[in-house]
């Protein structure tokens, strides 16, 4: 422990602490600009100077990098210190007049105007180097740097060109105290941090509110550490030391008798459909994004807001985006009509806006569904029968200015309509997951032409598959709403339970006639299940019926005709061939 005097107060503090750390612990405010607890002290802004009094002389020292020493006498707000800070902030006011943090700091010190000439009233960068240091030391991407020196110093990339090394982590913008750096995505859309959960997302997050276990995870695809091998800031700030980047995914093998596949679905990627402007126009979102927006734990706390924070006055909900469409998915996604009406209901409930539903047919086939449809008509939702042709922001008349215009043919009145709205919600097709092919391979399944998993029989075996013990539940089998999914899930669980302790063996299996077999062992070679063994004392081959799957390879291979397959005996097939040619 070290004894110091801070602003006249005698303190005993831990060795190795900086003056700034001690002051913060004591709740003494020292202004800082280039200091960040997660970065090495840079000591460039010189705002954190304090007066350190020695025996003969006193010195101004930057508190961010000066460690306390035995007997130090420190004044954080002596006249000399304040004077130095004041002039310093005046210098920065001239450099970055538009930086809010500088304006506020100056106001706190009672400074209204800088005595120094302002060159660029828009300038915000105070050259604190936070972005450069983060990019260099924390992220390790080495993209940002300074160019020029002295007064001409600037933050830039190498050769002032877009850098290929940039991993688009946005850390520079996040650390920038003056908002001099902002992140824009490649479509020219600016990404605000409040929006990050809707767009590119943080690398550490709780996947969704009801996730189990309800703990954050690190998304390796977005985590800086897995791109540059650096960062690990989360590890530094996590007090219980619960974060460990070196943990590899572990694979556990669990032996089970059966499995239920409930791998779900994906939404069709709407950015491939330029006519609807998704990803290009602001305020064109998908139904899932709208769901997120409405969620109480969502980015707006459940309020329905436009990107600029306004409430929408008009909302268009576009059905069948990619469903029932020869160019995309031919099938009906089944659930969109109903959820689209639910969304209309939510809009009515939360904001005062006109809602337009553009539909081909309303498919309200479930229990109570038609009634809900009627209710929505009464609530004032405009149902326009006609698939939306395009969404555009090109206004033709003044009412369309600054609006999104949905163009569609209204087939009930036989005319083309242009409806200006503020928010467009797309209901994209439900499609099979991109990785479903892999799962099919893994379990020996087939798919229907639409890419969903194929059930054993559409009517007689809707939960089971061609593979023994593998069952299906939910949208992996086809577009399905929640009640159907629950029902199928219950069915699958029931099917699994009913398997019991007994093993159902194939009704079709092969057997070897002991009398005929000469023990040539050819069948042993062809059996893929090791079901055939050679009986040494009888000098013949023998088939274990419980292992035999009944493929009949041995029968076809048997040169003596000793092997045969029940239900598909040689004579039966021969008879069938004969019958066919009769």
């Amino acid at each position, binding site marked *: 422990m070290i004894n110091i005097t801070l602003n006249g107060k005698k303190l005993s503090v831990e060795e190795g602490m900086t003056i700034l750390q001690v002051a913060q612990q004591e709740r003494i405010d020292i202004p800082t600009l280039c200091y960040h607890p997660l970065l090495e002290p840079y000591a460039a802004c010189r705002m954190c100077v304090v007066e350190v009094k020695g025996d003969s002389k006193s010195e101004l020292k930057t508190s961010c*990098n000066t460690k306390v020493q035995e007997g130090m006498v420190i004044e954080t707000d002596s006249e000399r210190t304040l*004077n130095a800070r004041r002039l310093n902030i005046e210098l920065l006011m001239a450099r970055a007049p538009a930086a809010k943090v500088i304006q506020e700091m100056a106001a706190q010190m009672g400074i209204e105007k800088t005595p120094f000439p302002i060159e660029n009233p828009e300038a915000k960068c105070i*050259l604190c180097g936070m972005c450069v240091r983060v990019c260099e030391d924390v992220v390790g991407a080495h993209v940002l740097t300074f160019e020029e020196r002295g007064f001409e110093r600037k933050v830039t990339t190498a050769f002032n060109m877009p850098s290929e090394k940039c991993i688009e982590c946005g850390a520079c913008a996040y650390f920038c105290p003056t908002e001099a750096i902002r992140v824009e995505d490649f479509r020219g859309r600016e990404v605000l941090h409040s929006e990050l959960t809707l767009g590119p997302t943080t690398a550490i997050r709780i996947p969704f509110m009801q996730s189990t276990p309800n703990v954050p995870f690190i998304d390796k695809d977005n985590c800086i550490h897995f791109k540059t091998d650096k960062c690990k800031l989360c590890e530094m700030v996590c007090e219980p030391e619960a974060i460990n980047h070196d943990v590899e995914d572990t694979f556990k093998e669990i032996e089970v008798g059966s499995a239920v596949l409930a791998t779900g679905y994906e939404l069709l990627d709407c950015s491939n459909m330029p006519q609807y402007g998704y990803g290009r126009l602001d305020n064109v979102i998908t139904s899932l994004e709208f769901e997120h927006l409405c969620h109480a734990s969502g980015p707006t706390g459940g309020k329905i807001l436009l990107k600029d924070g306004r409430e929408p006055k008009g909302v268009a909900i576009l059905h069948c985006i990619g469903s029932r469409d020869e160019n995309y998915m031919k099938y009906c996604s089944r659930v969109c009509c109903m959820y689209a009406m639910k969304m209309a209901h939510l809009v009515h409930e939360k904001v005062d806006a006109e809602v337009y539903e553009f539909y081909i047919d309303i498919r309200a086939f479930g229990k109570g569904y038609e009634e809900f449809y009627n209710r929505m008509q009464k609530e004032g939702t405009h149902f326009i029968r006609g698939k939306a042709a395009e969404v555009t922001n090109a206004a033709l008349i003044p009412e369309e200015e600054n609006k999104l215009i949905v163009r569609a043919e209204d087939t009930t009145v036989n005319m083309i309509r242009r409806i200006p709205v503020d928010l467009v919600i797309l209901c994209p097709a439900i499609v099979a997951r991109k990785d479903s092919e892999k799962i099919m391979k893994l379990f020996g399944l087939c798919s229907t032409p639409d890419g969903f998993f194929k059930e054993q029989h559409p009517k007689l075996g809707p939960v089971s598959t061609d593979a023994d013990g593998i069952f299906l539940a939910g949208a992996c089998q086809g577009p399905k709403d929640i009640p159907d999914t629950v029902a199928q899930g219950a069915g699958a669980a029931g099917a699994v339970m009913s398997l019991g302790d007994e093993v159902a063996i194939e009704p079709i299996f092969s057997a070897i006639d002991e009398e005929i077999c000469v023990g040539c062992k050819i069948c042993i070679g062809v059996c893929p299940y090791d079901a055939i063994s050679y009986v040494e004392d009888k000098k013949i081959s023998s088939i274990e019926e419980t292992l035999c799957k009944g493929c009949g390879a041995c029968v076809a291979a048997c040169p003596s005709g000793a092997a045969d397959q029940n239900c598909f005996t040689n004579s039966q097939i021969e008879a069938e061939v004969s019958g066919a040619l009769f």
Partner: protein
Amino acid sequence: MKPYRAELMVCAGTGCVSNGAFQVKDALENEIKERGLENEVRVVTTGCNGFCGVGPLLVVHPDGIFYQLLTTKDIPYLVEEHFLKGRPVQRLMYTPPEDKLPVPKMSEIEFFKHQMLIALRNRGIIDPENIEEYIARDGYTGLAKALNGMTPEEIIQTVKDSKLRGRGGAGFQTGVKWELTRKAKEKTKYIVCNADEGDPGAYMDRSILESDPHSILEGMIIGARAIGAQQGFIYIRHEYPLAMKRLLIAIDQAKEYGLLGDNIFDTGFSFDIQVHRGAGAFVCGEETALLSALEGQRGEPRPRPPYPVEHGLSGYPTNINNVETWANIPVIISRGAKWYAEIGTENSKGTKVFSLVGKINNTGLVEVPMGIKLRDIIYGIGGGIPDGKKFKAVQTGGPSGGCIPDSLIDLPIDYESLKEAGSMMGSGGMVVMDEDTCMVDVARYFLTFTCDESCGKCSPCRDGTKYLLDILTRITEGKGNMEDLDLLEGLSKVVKETALCGLGQTAPNPILTTMKYFRDEYESHIKDKKCPAKVCRQLNIYTIDEERCVTEGHGCGVCMRECPEKAITGEKKKAHKINQEICVKCGACYDVCRFGAVIVE
């Protein structure tokens, strides 16, 4: 080694080389061959002699005759007269300004007479590209002594006892620094020679590197032994190609002789030196910026603490000394701390090399004992001010030093007194100014340099120096007001107190000292809109003495033709006039008038 009867030491320092020393040398060699003297007389190229103002120069041994300002045309006559006939040529000798008679012997020239050579001990005497000549002058005996008879602690104690202080500027005790580095925990340690001499007009380090590179190597090897370093670096600026070349030759030779590398003198001690070229940023002379540059980073200072002795190059303890400091080490070891400590003053021991430039008769490099009075340097060694002008001030310590006025001419030169006077030792620049110098302009000039060289990391230096320069420029243009003086002083103090590194902390020194000693000049610029030295042209009023214009110049009209703004009117044989409303005060008329008819007020 073949004996010669005479050796012609041609100075091949950068100053002389740029004035044609190599051409002179070639001419000499040709001429000697032509006269059949090549077996008797030898030409040797040496490093800088120090008296750079009169180069190319030649010293003839054994007589010690000093020839100056040589051209190739002088050579045939010189060779015939001196080397063939033995008659030294008076015409080419140095003549002191106030004297009529030339001084033939180098040792009798005032410039050399008062100097005391320790760091520059071998200048002009040895061929810097020949290790044997260095050894002949007791080179590497200090190293032999340090490695064979002394423990590292004893070496450090000797350096401590000598009270040698860092010659780079700050004047930290070298021995203490070594001890701190030695005591640092890490096993890997580095030593660095700071040869990034960036002060304009100062070139003592270059001179040492060019004339005696082995002395630095020897110093570094001894230092490495004392500190426990395995690797040394010499950070040399790229603008010193000759120094760089000689240094590399010296390192190769030292390696060949086994003085560098593994197991030196069979003592089991190994050490190697690597030369690193800098790209000429003034700030890289600052030790932490230099380390950044060595690591391959941007040459920018880092906050201290942590200090390099604990956390230096790549995080390892690093001892940094400048060229002159290293060059002193071998002599201190071989001749002992006591001998060294007897030279100089109470707190500043030994000698210091200064580069004496500006308005002075004898410009060049001088090495003098600490404590010598400013007067002795300026009037003794320097030979006073040219054209009988009055001495006004001297700027010491490079662009970030301060100006010392004539009232302090008897100031003894050591670290403390200079600091007290508001200046500093710096690396040893000494710019002499006469009465024709405007002190505001001087401050502005130096601020232009520091502002330009600021790395831009910390705001006081980056923005502060810029605005200081703005204010000074304003004042020299006659647009200043009295509030500017307060702002200037206040800002200067804050920059000095809060800048991150030495560059910024010392940058306001020229302003603060000139304001302290020459405040009246500032006020005159602001209140009267006059520059007393008539240097700030924007404040001058140019008029034509009509009588003189007619009687002396017969209205020649040159000024009229020269005037870019056509502000001068007049006819031949009649007096010309300047229209003050159009005049932009460029001073062109004043420069061209041969009759002194243009008057500056």
